[in-house]
């Protein structure tokens, strides 16, 4: 037996009425625009006249205007209780009106009558009368129809049900609720609160947040970590709220969660990435089957605008950093120039157009796993144009020359890079069966410079300090230095349309233990 919900509702006179407690009781849910409810009004009144001295009898109506209209039309002895918020109807799991509940003394539902079946109501009247040693209900039962179906309860109307589910006790959402005044514009309000990255946000209503949470099987209160700089606690729910604001669909949420987990690691170091005066920002690369399931762009304009998944996943991650972590430009986010990639930067690898190992497999995952990899960029994507090379060696040579400028032309061993190779360049490489390791080796070879060329001089004071160079012998000065500390610091993915011979490079930020190390995380999908 289920128990009836506790409530406190106002009657038509504005008096507060509490749910029955410790006594047998009758509760009936009605709404005005239901013909069957109108038909049972005289029956309810007759019940009220007979039983209300022995037990509380509450008639609960679902609209304020309707309750007033019913009272006026039927002049019953009871005052209808106002459940226009529908929370009691929802909590009692009412699908049809009228629904009459008989509660026993323990507050358990002893019987339930749905719609109007004359026999059932008559039987109830007899049994209640017998229990109370009363005479039967004063009613001409023969004037009533044998049976009338009920009508749909407003609490299960699709216009109301999602909101009620979000607001109900036991709802997975626990975040502070903010009421926006009816005269306030909600989009303007969110700008004023500082929630926005500068573009309009989707209001994260309870209904939308609940819908967003349907995208993951994870507990809404699971803590993913603490987001710098404020060390705000990041829960699945907080990520979902920011994902709603960013414009995500629920099926994108697992990608956003995995990306947030990746940037929360000490290796990734989101604190440094946000605080640095360089314009650093995360670049999110998605691999695996989820790319297709959520319709990500990996082809034409993969790094550009126009695809909802690409655009909103990256934006959601940035909004979590801003809102939960508190990284805001001018405060702890202190980039000198800023960077448009700070709005969003997320794309998928075109694995089917990649003749080599895709990024996630190179990083230790199975091909059929969906994985997010987060890399820190400080500039780019910088195009490296080569429409002329016809051999892998020549093309990798051009890429090496282009990558020599990463950070600055004399900045060696300084950072890493994410190279996005376009399909036409892939085809050129495959003429010679040029592999990823060949590309990396050739880039290092072409961009290598003798130490003496990297010493600060009249043209530029960047590079190796003159004092340090002065202590070196000739052999040390002649030693060739590669642009990147290790070949693996050149990360390679494939994306872009089938036409165009311009690969793109994201230049890294400070790498290693004091900077940011790329991090991959498996995406946990709803199965």
């Amino acid at each position: 037996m289920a128990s009836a919900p506790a409530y406190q509702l106002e009657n038509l006179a504005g008096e507060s009425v509490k749910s029955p407690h410790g006594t047998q009781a009758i509760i009936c849910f009605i709404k005005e625009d239901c013909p069957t409810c109108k038909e049972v009004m005289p029956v309810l009144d007759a019940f009220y006249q007979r039983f209300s001295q022995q037990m509380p009898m509450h008639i609960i109506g679902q609209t304020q205007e309707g309750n007033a209209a019913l009272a006026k039309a039927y002049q019953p002895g009871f005052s209808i209780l106002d459940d226009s918020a529908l929370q009691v109807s929802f909590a009692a799991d009412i699908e049809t009106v009228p629904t009459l509940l008989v509660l026993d003394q323990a507050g358990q539902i002893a019987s339930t009558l749905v719609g109007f079946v004359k026999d059932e109501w008559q039987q109830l009247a007899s049994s209640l009368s017998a229990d109370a040693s009363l005479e039967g209900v004063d009613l001409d039962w023969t004037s009533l129809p044998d049976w009338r179906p009920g009508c749909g309860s407003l609490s299960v109307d699709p216009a109301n049900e999602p909101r009620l589910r979000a607001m109900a006790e036991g709802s997975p959402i626990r975040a502070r609720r903010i009421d926006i005044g009816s005269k306030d514009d909600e989009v303007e309000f969110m700008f004023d609160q500082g929630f926005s990255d500068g573009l309009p946000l989707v209001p994260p209503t309870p209904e939308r947040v609940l819908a967003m949470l349907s995208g993951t099987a994870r507990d809404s209160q699971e803590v993913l970590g603490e987001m710098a700089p404020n060390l705000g606690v990041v829960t699945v729910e907080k990520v979902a709220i920011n994902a709603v604001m960013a414009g995500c669909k629920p099926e994108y949420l697992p990608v956003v969660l995995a990306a947030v987990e990746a940037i929360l690691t000490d290796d990734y170091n989101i604190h440094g990435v946000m605080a640095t005066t360089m314009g650093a920002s995360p670049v999110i690369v998605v691999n695996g089957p989820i790319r297709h399931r959520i319709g990500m762009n990996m082809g034409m304009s993969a790094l550009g605008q126009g695809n909802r998944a690409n655009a909103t996943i990256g934006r959601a991650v940035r909004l979590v950093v801003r809102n939960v972590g508190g990284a805001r430009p001018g405060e702890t986010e202190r980039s000198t120039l800023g960077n448009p990639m700070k709005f969003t930067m997320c794309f998928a690898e075109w694995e089917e157009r990649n003749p080599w190992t895709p990024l996630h497999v190179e990083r230790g995952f199975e091909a059929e796993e969906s994985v997010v990899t987060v890399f820190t960029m400080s500039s780019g994507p910088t195009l490296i144009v080569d429409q002329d090379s016809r051999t892998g060696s020549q093309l990798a040579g051009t890429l090496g020359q282009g990558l020599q400028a990463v950070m600055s032309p004399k900045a060696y061993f300084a950072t890493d890079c994410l190279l996005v190779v376009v399909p036409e360049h892939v085809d050129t490489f495959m003429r010679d069966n040029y592999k990823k390791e060949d590309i990396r080796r050739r880039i290092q070879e072409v961009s290598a410079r003798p130490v003496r060329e990297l010493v600060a001089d009249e043209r530029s004071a960047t590079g190796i300090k003159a004092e340090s160079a002065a202590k070196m012998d000739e052999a040390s000065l002649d030693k060739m230095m590669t642009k990147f500390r290790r070949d693996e610091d050149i990360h390679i993915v494939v994306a872009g349309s089938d036409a165009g011979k311009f690969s793109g490079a994201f230049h890294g930020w400070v790498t290693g233990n004091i900077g940011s190390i790329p991090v991959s995380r498996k995406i946990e999908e709803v199965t």
Partner: protein
Amino acid sequence: MTTIMDPTDERVPVTRQLSPRPNQITGRVALLDISKPRGSVLLDQLEEVLAKQLPGVTLTRYAKPTFSKPAPQPLREEIHQDNDFVIEALAD
């Protein structure tokens, strides 16, 4: 009326108050180097000047392991516990 869910960490918005500024420096002063290049140069000079001008004051040097990450909790506690003032060198 629209209800939205708070996207922030829900800290009570409080305007940070500056600590009261005493008229003179006495006691213990921490000199914190965040480990950016040349921060130590600035602090060396400052230490020299302060030692001359404020002979009664104890000056102690501290350094963060790296500028790019928050100071470790034990270091923050140590500085807080053992000092009355902190001068932090943000430098490049």
